[in-house]
């Protein structure tokens, strides 16, 4: 019985350690998620704050439909930031400008010409369809929004920083607390066990029931021993084990080098779910190579900039440019304020997900343009992937299977006419798959 106690103690130490680690790990994950959540809830709260006036509400709608493409309240997009515009210019001037800026420029107005020059001589399109009240509504909205933005944004920015550090220090304190509590629990438990043990030892002297217990234990072991002596049983157990392990091993070996599900962390948290799924952007808008080349090509950053010059997701980041979009700007050394490109560029190093070995030749255009296969056939539900992973195994078996099953897309393609006709003469009526036209031959992919 003494033994039992010491065994228990020796168990206790690692157990205690494991508990501590487990608890702290749980805490850690919670701690990580927490700030993300709070940020998500904080953003809309900041944006929605403030009492809307009647005019400004109508103005907001007008602003979003007419001005929002090129203007923001507090920062420069295509056109200048509009906050404070009411103070800078007279109402009358603004009306003229909004309705027909080129007239104003042509009239030689000093301010108008200055703006025209500053923005690379691109005039703002006129909005003659807006009535004077519309313009007033918009201006009111700008005035209100400009005033509100200045206050809450600053508040949030100040509040956010200490909150952040608070979270992290809270985490550390929490961890220490958990460790302390766990340690206390262990100590107390140990005490309890010790007391119980002492009680047990006292009683041991009084009761002689040990023999019965030990007898039961012997019986249990006896069954095992009996079975162990049964050679047939042992043989079957070993055989069963071998077969199970062997078949698992065999299946596993087949997957050597197969990276289905491979999902490396990318330098930019680019979401196909958002771009291809929600926004329905055609795959080949970005992966234009798939249509004409062997490589589908990761788009060069100038393609990103086609949209992200304007799309900066500021509404989700308290008016700041999204940090992921900022990465594009950093890579290009692009200054969104001045809209100028610098020279300190740094290419983005994506991690390649689909690693076809060099010995296999694969051509996207053959499959995408000629065969007309959807990207999803090989790349899976890409429009649902927030982070891209390898969907298909990219094994030769997988290629071959598809070549065996897929009919050749020969309709309206004069290249195939003769081939198909000749083929039909030889084998009448069979389905013309890629395999039938030699799509399984080694040299079609390996050269």
């Amino acid at each position: 019985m003494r033994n039992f106690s010491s065994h228990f103690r020796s168990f206790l130490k690692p157990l205690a350690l494991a508990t501590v680690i487990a608890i702290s790990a749980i805490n850690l994950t919670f701690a990580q998620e927490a700030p993300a959540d709070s940020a998500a809830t904080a953003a809309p709260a900041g944006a929605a704050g403030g009492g809307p006036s009647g005019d400004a509400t109508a103005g907001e709608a007008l602003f979003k439909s007419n001005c929002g493409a090129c203007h923001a309240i507090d920062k420069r997009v295509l056109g200048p930031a509009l906050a404070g515009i009411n103070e800078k210019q007279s109402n009358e001037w603004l009306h003229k400008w909004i309705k027909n800026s080129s007239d104003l420029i042509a009239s030689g107005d000093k301010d108008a010409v200055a703006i025209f020059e500053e923005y690379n001589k691109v005039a703002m399109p006129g909005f003659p369809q807006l009535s004077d009240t519309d313009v007033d509504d918009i201006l009111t909205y700008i005035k209100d929004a400009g005033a509100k933005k200045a206050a809450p944004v600053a508040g949030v920015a100040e509040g956010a920083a200490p909150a952040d550090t608070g979270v992290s220090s809270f985490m550390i304190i929490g961890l220490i607390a958990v460790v302390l509590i766990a340690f206390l629990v262990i100590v107390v438990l140990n005490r309890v066990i010790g007391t119980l043990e002492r009680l047990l030892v006292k009683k041991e002297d009084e009761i002689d029931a040990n023999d019965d217990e030990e007898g039961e234990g012997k019986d249990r072991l006896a069954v095992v021993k009996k079975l162990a002596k049964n050679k047939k049983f042992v043989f079957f157990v070993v055989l069963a084990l071998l077969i199970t392990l062997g078949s698992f091993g065999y299946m596993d070996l087949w997957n050597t080098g197969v990276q289905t599900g491979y999902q490396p962390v990318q330098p930019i948290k680019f979401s196909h779910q958002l771009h291809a799924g929600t926004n329905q952007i055609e795959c080949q808008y970005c992966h234009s190579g798939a249509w004409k080349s062997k490589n589908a090509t990761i788009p060069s950053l100038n393609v990103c900039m086609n949209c992200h010059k304007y799309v900066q997701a500021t509404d989700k980041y308290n008016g700041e440019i999204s940090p992921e979009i900022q990465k594009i700007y950093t890579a290009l050394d692009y200054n969104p304020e001045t809209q100028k490109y610098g020279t300190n560029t740094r290419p983005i190093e994506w991690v390649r997900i689909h690693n076809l070995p060099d010995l296999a030749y694969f051509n996207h255009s053959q499959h995408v343009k000629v065969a007309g296969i959807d990207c999803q056939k090989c790349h899976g539900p890409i429009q649902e992937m927030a982070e891209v992973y390898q969907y298909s195994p990219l094994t030769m078996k997988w290629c071959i299977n598809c070549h065996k099953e897929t009919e050749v897309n020969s309709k309206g393609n004069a290249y195939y006419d003769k081939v198909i006709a000749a083929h039909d003469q030889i084998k009448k009526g069979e389905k013309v798959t890629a395999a039938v036209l030699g799509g399984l031959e080694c040299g079609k992919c390996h050269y």
Partner: protein
Amino acid sequence: MESTKKYWKGLEEVNNTPEFAEHSKNEFAEPIPVEELLEGSGLNSVAPRRDFLKAMGFGLGAVSLAACNVAPVQKSIPYLIKPEEVTPGIPNYYSSSYKGGSILVKTREGRPIKIEGNPSCLINQGGLNGQAQAAVLDLYDISKLKGPLKGGAEYSWDDVDTYVKRQLSKVQASGKVIALVSSTVNSPSTKAVIAEFSSQYPATKQVTVDAVSYSGIIKANEANFGKAVLPQYRFDKASVIVSFGADFLGTWISPTQFTKQYVSNRSMASLNQKKMSRHIQFETGLSMTGTNADSRIAIKPSEEGAAILSLYAELTGTAVNGASLSNNNPASAAIKLTAKELLAAKGSALVISGSNSIATQSVVNAINSFLGSYGTTIDLDNPSYQFAGKDEDLTMLLADMKAGRVGAVLFLDANPVYNHPSAKDFAEALKKVDLTVSFADRADETASLCNVIAPNHNFLEAWGDENAIEGYYTLVQPTINPIYNTRQAELSLLVWANYPNQDYYAFVRSNWEKSVLGLTGKKWDDVLQAGFVALPAKAAGTYSFNGAIDANEVLKQGKALAKDIELHIYESVAVGSGAQANNPLLQEMPDPVSKVTWDNYAAINPKFAESLGIRQFDIVTVKTDKYSVDLPVIHQPGQAQGTVSVAVGYGRTKAGKVGDGVGQNVYPFITYNQGTANFVSTVTVSNTGRRDELALTQTHQTIEGRNIIREATFAEYKKDPAHGSGNNDEKHPTYDLWGKYDQPGHNWVMAIDLNACTGCGACIVACNTENNVPVVGKDEVRRRREMHWIRIDRYYTFQEDGKNLTEEHEIVDMQGSMENVSVVHQPMMCQHCEHAPCETVCPVLATVHSNEGLNHMAYNRCVGTRYCANNCPYKVRRFNWFNYWNDSRFDNYLNNEFTQLVLNPDVTTRSRGVMEKCSMCIQRIQAGKLEAKMDKRVLADGDVKVACQQTCPANAIVFGDANDPNSEVSKALKNERTYYVLEELNVQPGVGYMTKITNTGSQEA
């Protein structure tokens, strides 16, 4: 009728040496030590139990480690801002210019990987020789300088500019000469730059000198016709061609152009019209042109002048004193017959000489004038500007330098310390010059002695232009950013001349807009796209000889040579003048005749060598009183008795990693006559007793006396086009063990015209660059491990006393005279047999047949049993003994980050232990098919061109789809001359050959 001629590939075969007999039975030169392993300590030794367990344990551990399923992290880095015209995965082609001929440069992702001829080029018409094909590798050469040097130390361009400008002004002020030494400059813009430079520094004197000079012809033309030019020769208009030592198909002036012209009268198209030119060659060493001649007569260099003079005498009927070939009866008789043939072909005859002697060339001019060649086969009004060097200019400069009259020397594309006969004097004299500048891209023999090296761009990095022939202007445009910190030589000159606009692109463009574009009315962009501008050719006027024949001078030059053994110095087809000596592709390209790689050698006739007691591969000392070199000997059939031939272009000491120490430099043997360099000398030859085995590709794969070369004479052909092809004979009955393959789509086949093929080897280099074929180096070639997918087999046969030798013993008996050999070149690559023996024996099905008639080779499936190579009747399979592209032992080729940029990304680099062979450029076939599919059109004949076919200057290779009855190849294969090599085996090869036709003329010369 099958030919009864006996062919042999090398002397080993004729002599049937024991080594040859032994090797001929083996596919691989060195036996694999299987027996040793089994009998020796291999299996009999007792492996201790512990060792066994250790090995097992380690093995298990290694396997489980290797099986750890970790995905390799590969970075994919897209462009920041992608140039509009670049799509990764799709090649771009840019027109440019190489040595005056328009070319197309194939680039992938911004790096040039292949050079093709521009099909509309006036000079080369889409053909390119091996040197042009290999030039793309020069771009990535790591032996080049990474930036400018001053006094051997790295300097910035600004510092170099300041220093050079200061020095130049000093020299200008001191009244000394500023010499600009260059090889021929035919670029209008470079000329304009030099003019700018000269106006800033009036003391500038331009000295033009070519390593292999043609100034004899230019001087003779100046004396005889008043035109100091190199004429354009028109071999396509010549029905009788007589060449005295001019290797016009291999190296002489413009070989690719001449091959195109020459073959136009000898190829299938011409033969179908029953037309064929006649070509008679008088020469010393067996040149590539000599191997293609209908009649070839060996003469000594000392007899050349006399032979030309006696031809003149024979033609005109005037007696020329001393013009007799009394010591060479066959030549004497041949001259008489040649004269008759030339007279019969008056107006379409062409006589040329490779001599650089003014006196000799004058006689040739007189002959051509008499034959009415000017205006027909020789065009003096549209001259060639490919070579304009004047030998005496450099001699004068050397004297000036010695006298201290030269203050500065600038070397542009010139390396006289290597390739000038008085190189030593020149190096000494350089020390007396204050400022020496070289524009060489590497610290070569001359540049390393200069104060400043301002490395020039490679032509693929540079803007420029060329004017190789009258009225034909080509543009050079860059296809890549400069790889190293180099600067265009022209720009350096402009900077030093304080020219205001320091942008060479703008300079070239404005220069063109001022001159060439004005003449044609074309726009710059159009010209840049086309690559060239061709002004209408002037009418070729007739000229009559207006000079004197200096017979005494000609004979005197001959007599001076006849003292000892006569040395004939020539340019090798592969390495040329030696400027590209650091190019491993060229070093490993076998010489078209001797099949030697990685060396130059002393070629001696076997009979003469026997009399000197020199065996093949003995190292001999070739010596004059001034200079001597030790060279290995090769027994060269066809070589004139009493002569030895050695190639220039070797023996570089500062070319770089590859070219240094390969062969010996024989430029110093060159002698001078009347101010021009003559590529002959008189030497003594003595055996050193040492031996050096040359790396030959010659007798690697024997044919065991099988009937694989078929030929006929032109007379026989005219009677029966199928003569000699074996197509009239009863065919051997055949049995098929295999079922027939269905080929519903395409059936890719090839036809090779043996009568067009000149053996130049351009296809080998083109194939190498297209298919990433590795260079293996001299030692590996000696072990017969060269990797070329296409080789050109060269078969000798010889005729004596007008009858063909038929029996083997007769050949052995005829050992005596090894002069009258004739040669057939046969390109040999995988024949893509329908019943391929290699496929049957592959245990892992790594080589299998396709339904397009190709024999596929899956490298990743191959386990390297090499059964296929053993079972291949054509011996065209190549085994990778090493990872050539990534093994420090093969440091001369791809084993660095720069040269690897030349690899074709569409073709796998093969790893050690796998077999490879010609794939018929399957990547091009697939790309061509894909393009057709994307355009939804039928794949037209000619859409797919294989690399060897595309570059072939002789159009000897036709490739296409046999399922298309109207394709070029279908027509060619239906030709009566077409036969299949080893067709009796019924392997049903996909490559057909057309019989070689020899135009022996009305009477045998």
